[in-house]
C-alpha cells in the first residue's frame, strides 16, 4: 500500500485529488523501475486540474541517463490530420526522443489520427510499435515516449481508443480543499476562517476559479496595503468585481428571476431570455441544478433555496 508521504513526494504543490495522486504515484514508481507506463486518459470537469496533474506526473518521470523527461503539451483542437501531426510534431519532437506527450482536449483529435492511434496504442505487451502510413514508417518506443490524454468530454472519444487507455477520473473538490487552494495561492494575504468559507462557495467547485479568486484577493490586499482579508473585505471585493452569491453568472441570475414569476418550459425560458435551448441546458442550468436552486419536473421551477438566493441578489 502506498503511503501519504509517497503521494505528497510526487505532488507536493497540488491540493486534493487524493485518489488521482495515489494512482499516478503508483505509475510513477512503476515507470521509474520498469521504464513502462500505461497510456493514461485523464477525465473530469473543467478546472479540476487535469493539465496540472499531467505536468506534475511528467515532472517525476526520469530518463535512462537520470535527467528529467521533457514534457510536450499539445492542444488537439489545432491538429487537422495525420500528415500535419507526423510532419510538425512526431518527426521533429517525438521520434527517437525521451519525452512525455500530453494530448489536451483529446476529444478534438481528427478522425484519421484517431484511427492511426488505434493501431499505435494497440501494443498488448510490446513496448515498441512501427506505424506504416503513406509509404513511410514511424517508430514508437514506449520506453522513451510516455503518452497522456486529457479531456472534459470523455463521451466524445472514439470508444475503441478509450479502451486502449487507462482512465484516471478526477473528483470534484470539497469546500475545504478549495479553501486550501485559496490560502496557498493568496499567500500574501491572511484570509479569515469565516471569510474563507464564503470565498470557497463563490468559486463554483472549480480549482482554476479558486486560483483566479486568490489572485483577486492578493490584488485587493495589495491595493489596500493590508494583510488580513475579512468577510467585510470580501463583500467589498464582490461589489468591485461583480461577484454574485455562489459565484453565479448574470445569465443564471436572469434564469432565477424568470422562474421567480412561476415555472416555465425550456422553450418558454429560452424565449424569455433570448437564448437557445441548448445553451440554457448545457451552459447555464447545470450549476443551478447542482446547487439545488432550481428543479426540473417536466417544467423548470425555482426551489426555496433559489428564492433565498434571489432575495440576496435583490439586495446587491
Amino acid at each position: 500500500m502506498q503511503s501519504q508521504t509517497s503521494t505528497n513526494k510526487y505532488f507536493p504543490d497540488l491540493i486534493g485529488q487524493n485518489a488521482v495522486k495515489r494512482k499516478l504515484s503508483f505509475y510513477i514508481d512503476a515507470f521509474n523501475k520498469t521504464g513502462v507506463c500505461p497510456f493514461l486518459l485523464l477525465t473530469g470537469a473543467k478546472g479540476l486540474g487535469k493539465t496540472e496533474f499531467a505536468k506534475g506526473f511528467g515532472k517525476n518521470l526520469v530518463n535512462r541517463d537520470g535527467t528529467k523527461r521533457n514534457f510536450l503539451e499539445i492542444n488537439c483542437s489545432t491538429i487537422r490530420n495525420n500528415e500535419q501531426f507526423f510532419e510538425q510534431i512526431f518527426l521533429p519532437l517525438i521520434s527517437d526522443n525521451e519525452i512525455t506527450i500530453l494530448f489536451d482536449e483529446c476529444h478534438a483529435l481528427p478522425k484519421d489520427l484517431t484511427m492511426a492511434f488505434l493501431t499505435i496504442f494497440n501494443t498488448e505487451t510490446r513496448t515498441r510499435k512501427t506505424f506504416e502510413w503513406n509509404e513511410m514508417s514511424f517508430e514508437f518506443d514506449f520506453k522513451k515516449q510516455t503518452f497522456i490524454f486529457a479531456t472534459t468530454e470523455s463521451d466524445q472519444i472514439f470508444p475503441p481508443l478509450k479502451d486502449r487507455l487507462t482512465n484516471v477520473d478526477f473528483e470534484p473538490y470539497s469546500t475545504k480543499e478549495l479553501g486550501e487552494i485559496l490560502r496557498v495561492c493568496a499567500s500574501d494575504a491572511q484570509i479569515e476562517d469565516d471569510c474563507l468559507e464564503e470565498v470557497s462557495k463563490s468559486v463554483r467547485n472549480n480549482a482554476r476559479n479558486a486560483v483566479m479568486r486568490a489572485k483577486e484577493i492578493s490584488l485587493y490586499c495589495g491595493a489596500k496595503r493590508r494583510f488580513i482579508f475579512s468577510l467585510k473585505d470580501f463583500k467589498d471585493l464582490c461589489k468591485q468585481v461583480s461577484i454574485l452569491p455562489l459565484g453565479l453568472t448574470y445569465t443564471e441570475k436572469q434564469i432565477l428571476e424568470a422562474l421567480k414569476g412561476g415555472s416555465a418550459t425550456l422553450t418558454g425560458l429560452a424565449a424569455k431570455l433570448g437564448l437557445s435551448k441548448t445553451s440554457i441546458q448545457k451552459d447555464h442550468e447545470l450549476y443551478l441544478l447542482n446547487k439545488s436552486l432550481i428543479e426540473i419536473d417536466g417544467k423548470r421551477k425555482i426551489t426555496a433555496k433559489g428564492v433565498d438566493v434571489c432575495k440576496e441578489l435583490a439586495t446587491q
Partner: protein
Amino acid sequence: MKRGRPKGYSPYVEISYEDLADYVGRKTLIKVCKTWIEDLAEQAHSSTNLFSATKESFVEDSHEEAVKEEQPKIEYAITNFD
C-alpha cells in the same frame, strides 16, 4: 408526345473558377479531361524546361504542395523540468 431536349438546350452552364470554388472549395477533386489537363501542364512548363516528370505526377505534386502550404501550425508547448 414530345421527347428529347428542346432546341438549344445544354446541360452545362458557364461559371468562373472563382465562383465554383465558393461552392466546392479549392481542394475538392474535380474530374477533367486527361488530354486537356496534360496539354495545359505542358504549355505552362514548356518555356522553362523544368518539366521532366510525367504529366500525371505533376498534377498530383502540385496538388500536394498546395495542401502542404496551407497546413496550419499545431499549437504546442515544451516544458524542460531540469
